[in-house]
């Protein structure tokens, strides 16, 4: 999306950096799948403090649905190796919210998603997982795939030093062939779903707007009564 890291991914990056800071042996790699201009968001992530990046970039990926995207990303992850994969919880464009679950399934790793707090203790990971009516405290062993919810942290701004350092950090570009991705399983051809049509939502019919002349509350009540809400 215009070379910007979408907001939720910044929370994922920030959480990765914090975990790495608390576990000195570790390293943060940014994995991004996207067109040429994704390079800009990768640089931003590196300037926040990530160590290196892998950019999966191939015209054959265009039109991939969630299932195909998870396959492509899993192929890369298998090749580069990991202890922990952190995803944003939903991309702001399509609101799928399924990527962490799909990756965990493909990688045979534990899924501890919708995390509002993460704690790593050796090979154990403990997460406060947001549920519909509160939260669950869950525990698993690494390797794991997690997704984070907004509010898990306050993402840092890149410092000037960070921006300068990012210019020298390694970014590996991978094609389908490099990652061992079967071209027939990605892109429009590999997608298991398709868009039939799309249109702008018709605007809502203009409502009645009144100025409060001391009877605003009574008027709302009248409206609610005509619609049988009270």
């Amino acid at each position, binding site marked *: 999306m215009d070379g910007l890291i979408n907001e939720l991914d910044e929370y994922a990056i920030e959480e990765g950096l914090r975990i790495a800071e608390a576990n000195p042996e570790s390293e943060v790699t940014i994995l991004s799948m996207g067109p040429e201009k994704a390079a800009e968001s990768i640089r931003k992530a590196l300037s926040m403090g990530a160590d290196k990046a892998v950019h999966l970039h191939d015209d054959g990926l265009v039109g991939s649905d969630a299932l195909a995207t998870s396959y492509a990303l899993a192929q890369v992850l298998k090749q580069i190796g990991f202890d922990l994969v952190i995803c944003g919880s939903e991309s702001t464009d399509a609101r799928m919210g399924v990527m962490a*679950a799909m990756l965990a399934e493909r990688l045979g790793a534990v*899924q*501890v*998603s919708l995390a509002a707090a993460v704690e790593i203790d050796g090979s154990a990971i403990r997460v406060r997982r947001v549920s*519909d009516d509160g939260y669950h405290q869950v525990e698993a062993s690494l390797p794991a795939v997690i997704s984070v919810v907004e509010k898990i942290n306050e993402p840092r701004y890149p410092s000037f030093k960070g921006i300068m350092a990012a210019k020298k950090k390694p970014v590996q570009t991978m094609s389908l062939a490099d990652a061992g991705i079967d071209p027939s399983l990605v892109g429009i051809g590999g997608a298991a779903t398709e868009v039939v049509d*799309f249109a702008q939502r018709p605007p809502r019919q203009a409502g009645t*707007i009144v100025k409060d002349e001391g009877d605003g509350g*009574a008027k709302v009540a009248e409206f609610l009564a005509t619609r049988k*809400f009270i």
Partner: protein
Amino acid sequence: MAEVLVLAEHADGEVKKVTVELITLARRFGEPAVVWAGPGAEAGQARCAEFGAARVYVASDAALDDIVVTPVTELLAQLVREKSPALVLIAGTGQGKEIAGRLAVKIDSGVLTDAVDLVPGDDGPVAEQSVFGGATVVHSRVRRGTPIVAVRPNAISPEPSSGDAELVAVELDSSPSGARILERVVAERGERPDLTEASIVVSGGRGTGGAEGFGLIEQLADALGAAVGASRAVTDAGWYPHQFQVGQTGKTVSPQLYMAIGISGAIQHRAGMQTSKTIVAVNKDPEAPIFELADYGVVGDLFKVVPQLQEEIGKRKQLLFRTSRRPD
């Protein structure tokens, strides 16, 4: 007739509203068969029958309750293999979408999430989704495998129909591993309905001025039997807990009535509420974008308008009480 699997959302044997919505929806495509993971199926059976479920597959393996997402997914995959259903319907909640996603990988089938409607088409079910913060309507379909669709709560109106809801025990073939739930904490919300399931939602924004002013929103919600929502400005400022945030980065709601009080209506917020059936707004700024969405809006001070509204609701309730006490 082919079966349509509906994964039940339930708590203490009580079937959630979204599940009867999905059973209603399932009838468009075949014979609804509810999948019940965990305890309480006997208690929930009648309600499933009331909305036309032909049977209820019940699996009560302890893992279904203790381990995150994987066992339920395994159960669904097993039933898809054994029953070859026409379609799998799952509630479009945070966890529901994850189950849908994992199931899609497991059975190599297409998955559609955030559906607000689903209709039969020439090449299988066609889902309506709203994307880009609700500004665009997309129709999509699954073209490989057994369609899996996660449907938003409140999108479908439940309609009763009779079914046998015969309980059929299912044994889980495998013993799945995964993240273990150590503790469950239910957030305090008193007697109010669940935010994503409520038919009326009253939300407050920056205009409430603070936690104290936000109390007015709670009072109005209680007068209407509504759930309480909040804009991001409110939850960011800590005036109200985060789990009540409505918006792109919070919960998506589509109640029968949404009342936006002191909320300007930034795109962030609109994305979470603009599919509400009726929208009422109160804001002191006549230029606030929320008025573009409102069916009824009052430009004014919420601290004057809301108490008066509450008083009027009280009067009408009393009237109703009197008439019901003294039938002619």
